[in-house]
């Protein structure tokens, strides 16, 4: 089965089983998102991809496309809500873009630019999150985690290692390493793992390679995140 629906007045075609965001991105219509990744089952946690379908809010990464839907996405009201969600992500972690090597290659930063976020607005939580530098090739900087669970899903579904998990509940939810010691060095994670490359922010860093791409040649220096059909693939290529 296939069909058509409209998003912000534009007619978008879809095939059976496609979600709204899948059909929209395939048609070149950008919907802001962070936890969505085309290679993984949807998680529906970041809520940035929230759209209105026939007047009601829904996550476009989990809602299946249906014929004749009327979808609103790029509206001032929805973008205001997305900007607020993005600001909350910034203050919940420690996102210090000026010295972060993922600047220019970071989906959170690029999304904030896209949404016109000019300040964090809310008081920063300044959570205490020590880095895990125990692994010889990969450094984990938990300060930047936005709980998208992409590394959890990649390690479980692609790498088949189950090296990561989200632990705790509510505001106390945090990323952990699945090892008795809690240290990355005590897992079988390698530099080749999908989990190491799928992070949309700067939690997973390849050691000794920081800042090797000059300003002007980074993914989102070249064009804004809304101009990429698959921004995830672009940053993983780096």
């Amino acid at each position, binding site marked *: 089965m296939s069909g058509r629906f409209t998003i912000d007045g534009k007619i978008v075609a879809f095939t059976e089983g496609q979600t709204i965001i899948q059909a929209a991105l395939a048609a070149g219509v950008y919907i802001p998102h962070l936890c969505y990744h085309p290679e993984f089952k949807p998680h529906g946690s970041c809520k940035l991809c929230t759209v209105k379908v026939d007047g009601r809010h829904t996550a476009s990464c989990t809602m299946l496309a249906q014929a004749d839907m009327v979808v609103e996405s790029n509206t001032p009201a929805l973008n205001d809500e997305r900007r607020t969600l993005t600001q909350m992500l910034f203050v919940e972690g420690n996102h210090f873009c000026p010295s972060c*090597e993922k600047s220019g290659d970071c989906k959170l930063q690029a999304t904030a630019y896209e949404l016109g976020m000019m300040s964090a607005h809310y008081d920063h939580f300044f959570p205490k999150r020590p*880095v895990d530098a125990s692994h010889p090739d990969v450094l984990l900087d938990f300060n930047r985690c936005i709980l998208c669970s992409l590394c959890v899903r990649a390690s479980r579904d692609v790498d088949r290692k189950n090296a990561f998990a989200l632990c705790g509940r509510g505001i106390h939810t945090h990323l952990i390493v699945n090892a008795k010691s809690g240290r990355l060095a005590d897992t079988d994670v390698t530099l080749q793992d999908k989990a190491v490359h799928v992070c949309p922010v700067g939690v997973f860093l390849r*050691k000794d390679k*920081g*800042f*090797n791409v000059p*300003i002007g040649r980074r993914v989102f220096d070249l064009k804004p995140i809304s101009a990429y059909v698959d921004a995830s693939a672009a940053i993983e290529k780096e």
Partner: protein
Amino acid sequence: MSHQLETALHPSGLRRVAIDTVSRVEGHGKVTILLDERNQVQQVRLHIVEFRGFERFIQGRPYWEVPVMVQRLCGICPVSHHLAASKALDQVVGATRLTPTAEKIRRLMHYGQILQSHALHFFYLCSPDLLFGFDSEVSRRNIVGIAAAHPEIAKRGVLLRKFGQEVIRVTAGKRIHGTGSVPGGVNKSVTLEERELLLADIYQTVGWCRDAVRLIKELHAQNPALYKEFGVCRSNTMSLVGAEGELDFYHGSLRARDGNGGILFDAVDYCDYAQYIQEEVKPWSYMKFPFFTAFGKRNGWYKVGPLARVQNCDRIPTPLAEIERREFIDYCGGLPTHAPLAYHWARMIELLHAAETIKDLLHDDDILGDDLVRTGERATEGVGVIEAPRGTLIHHYRVDEDDLVTMCNLIVSTTHNNQAMNEAIRQVARRYLDGCEITEGLLNHIEVAIRCFDPCLSCATHALGQMPLAVELVDAAGVRLHALSRNGDGAVCQPCA
């Protein structure tokens, strides 16, 4: 004599005059002056009132992040911190020798930095004092006033700075807080188009720098007594010099001279800086007071920066600047000058040298290369020293086996000049303020002396862990319930109620 003015014998009952904040300098500082009932100066201090803390919060971060993070100390000369940190971490990654492209790109970046910072300091911050007079009308004593009265000078100042910023953008990725230098080398070289862009303006830039030297010489000639005698503070000096004793802003060994120009130490590997320099903490400032260990706190303090460098080196390795250096040395009678206003002359000679060096580097095809990074045997410690616009800049790091920084020590240029600035303003206060009715114009004399050193007060506040602090617990009615204070020596005590 001026040493006596650091702390008044009986401060109670003295009248306090404060310059808060000192204007037309980078960062925040203030000066306090204590006067007795006859307006005799009893105490003068330059206070640094900001608190930063980079040395502490860099700990626990991965080493490759450091050159980008520490440059946030400053928006005027971030390249200096970027490169000093990179040089220290070159040692950590085992890059004992950079590729020719990497070294020349870094040099280009650094000389662009010197050019733009010196232009900013002379034209924007200091020329109003020098062209209008120290006690001229305050409303026009600024760059806008210069633009109105001397539009060509103002325009050249702006465009010289712009050119230096363009050199930085091409080599570091952006004009302020770029990422071009990485441990072991650089992440980009220069394209043919970028080189052409810079070459189009470099000859005019060199010409304008020659004119800037001419301008400061004319100012000296108009009032030689003022320029020779204002705020003189005799001291030792220190700077990096190249392998043959030449002026080199990027790399070299440490050389120090006494007040007469005699060598105190020379050809010192800067990695051994801690054997030669110590820092004293005083309870009234966040900025430390460095001194040469061998000569003690009282006699071991020293000056750095343009005046130290131009007099410390044996020669300048570009022809036009070398001619100017010789003329400057001859003007001073072959003996070192310790006049703060002579800093401006030396700074303009360096401005010219930076422009000439940029010209030479732009004609060197190595800057177009693609061999950018070297690594080798890993080490756990590195020291990087560079001549920043304001003077010698020292970065020292230790890195653990997991690649995280465990120790960071920064001795920035302005810190070296701390005692010299204090001595200079005491001389000026004694000479111009003693017994006088204090006016804005007279107080500006104090600021003029500080500006000579081109201090960057935001960079210079690093007394973390030892800074004096007073903490009070006060109830809602304002009654002090409890108090603790920490002295400059780190001792914690409970003050008397």
